[in-house]
């Protein structure tokens, strides 16, 4: 078990190293003058651009520059952005809690919706309940986040507010620490927007996985032992059906933590997705590069966590 974890951690470090190298090549290798011109700003003259090139260290060789970038990252610094010359770290540390609040809250909601409906569908296949679950899943699967989000805003913000019930704010974000109540109110609609689509995916995932497991011989063995239906389904069935769910959850959390772009946009949440979109619009390369490195790291880290959770869940994996 410890060997599995250690091996995964070594892989993790190697992959992260490769990611930073590739990101660096993609974003910062090229004509030094172009980069310096972006950094220096729109109205900069040749002297200012030369000056900027020196400040960015562009007159050094590739490995020197990369090493400089990497040591910056290792010290936890993404450097300065081009637009405002402020540390990217502070922008990320402002944006990340927003995205994390959005994603983790949504994860809780979609699991709370998806798992029970999936289990119900799998244990009563082809029943009316199963069909209702399938209808639910197909409805939200086929509804893009921006449609659902805008619909929520229309109904819960626009119509309710016009009717004199201003329960939900239109957009924006309030920190958990500054006002938990407002934090919750500002996030409830984004949460639902993100969670309903994902709940639909998980409903199908769990239904399929559990149906497969319930057809296994060891489920028949459990029934033959005289265990109650409940024990058979939950202890023997759901436990074994969770593996693919864990994989999917790891990928989803990793991907979304780098920015739930659409949902953040619709609800005006200043998260990593918004930061990335603004940076791309302004061609602010260091910020985009920072988010790319961050996004890749989230996915790699989540994958490592998934692998370790696998080893905890399944004794057969511990040997591998």
């Amino acid at each position, binding site marked *: 078990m410890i060997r599995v974890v250690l091996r995964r951690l070594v892989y993790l470090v190697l992959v992260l190293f490769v990611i930073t190298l590739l990101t660096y090549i993609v974003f910062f290798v090229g004509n030094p003058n172009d980069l310096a011109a972006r950094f220096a700003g729109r109205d900069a003259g040749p002297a200012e651009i030369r000056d900027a090139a020196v400040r960015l260290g562009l007159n050094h060789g590739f490995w020197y520059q990369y090493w400089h970038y990497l040591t910056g990252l290792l010290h936890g610094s993404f450097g300065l952005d081009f637009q405002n010359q402020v540390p990217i770290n502070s922008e990320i540390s402002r944006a990340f809690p927003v995205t994390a609040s959005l994603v983790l809250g949504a994860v809780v909601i979609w699991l709370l919706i998806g798992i029970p409906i999936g289990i119900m569908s799998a244990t009563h296949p082809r029943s009316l309940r199963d069909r209702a679950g399938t209808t639910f899943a197909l409805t939200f699967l086929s509804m893009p986040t921006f449609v659902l989000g805008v619909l929520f805003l229309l109904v819960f913000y626009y119509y309710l507010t016009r009717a004199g019930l201003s329960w939900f704010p239109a957009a924006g974000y309030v920190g958990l620490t500054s006002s938990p109540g407002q934090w919750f109110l500002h996030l409830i609609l984004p949460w639902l927007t993100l969670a309903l689509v994902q709940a639909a995916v998980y409903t199908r995932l769990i239904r399929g996985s559990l149906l497969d497991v319930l057809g296994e*011989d*060891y489920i028949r*063995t459990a029934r*033959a*032992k*005289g265990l109650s*239906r409940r024990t058979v389904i939950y202890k023997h069935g759901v436990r074994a059906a969770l593996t693919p769910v864990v994989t999917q959850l790891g990928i989803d959390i990793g991907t979304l933590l780098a920015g739930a772009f659409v949902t953040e946009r619709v609800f005006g949440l200043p998260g990593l997705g918004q930061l990335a979109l603004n940076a791309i619009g302004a061609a602010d390369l260091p910020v985009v590069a920072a988010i790319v490195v961050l996004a890749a790291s989230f996915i790699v880290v989540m994958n490592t966590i998934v692998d370790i959770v696998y080893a905890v869940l399944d004794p057969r994996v511990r040997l591998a």
Partner: protein
Amino acid sequence: MSLLEVRDLRVSFDTDDGTVYAVQGMSFSVEAGQTLGIVGESGSGKSVSTQAIMGLTPGATITGEALLDGANLLTMSEGQLQSIRGSKVSLIFQDPLTSLHPLYRVGSQIAEAMLVHGHVAKAEARARAVELLGQVGIPEPAKRVRDYPHQFSGGMRQRVMIAMALALEPKLIIADEPTTALDVTVQAQILELLARMQRDYQTAVILITHDLGVVADVADEVVIMYAGRPMERAGVEAAFVEPHHPYTQGLLQSIPSYSGRTGKLRPIRGYPPSLMHQIDECPFASRCPLVHDECRVAPPPLKPVGTRPGHLSACVLPSDRVGLVAAEASQAAAGAAER
């Protein structure tokens, strides 16, 4: 009174393609401490019959009677059946590789039934699991209880399944092809173990198999099944020495050692009938070398045949026409007619 008496059991499944009549009038009985062999080819309904009476065939339509100590299993609630499964009646399945839960330790899987039915403390159930593992011949049982199924070989896993079945000293063990998935050398060990445990625990066994050799070794009584029906019921000696039904005779002649004299195997020609409709003639009629017009009228009921009590056959042939010699003569005649 028999320990288990099954009368006119019928099991059918509604599928998208129509109704499958898997079992059509199965009858058998098992006496306490005895071994009943149920023999038949794949799809003859032998597994379905036993799983249906234990309530393990979800979605099936079941009629008939299955009296366990006089109580009809087929009219019981799921809760009542749960209290019988694993305590009074245990089941062992064909493939030990897939029949154990991969994520739980074998010890806890053995202890589970005890905790549910036996109202024993965890420590007690655990100690008993170690004891059982030792009894079924697993070395270092105290250590191995903490292992997972994938750390055992196929034969060892079937030993674990047997230990699990014995946990609450059931009156009846239904062993559904317990050795089919195992190596030949391991098969004999498992059968020997099953027989020893049966003696030690005074348990009755229903042994489901397609292997007549296995039945000859361990069974007291035999039911030969074909297309969801019993073709012949007999004591093991009568079945092998004085078979009556042409299907039984055909089965015996397709065993290499039985057809030794001519040096050639005699397979039964043709295929079993489809179970997608109710069969209104003798199900074996289309393959039978001795088929009569009478066989086409209705499926013949079981009737007493031969010289030994309890020997029943579902064939219209005269009841004293038993034994392989008669069959060989008739097959030779059939062969001549074909030419």
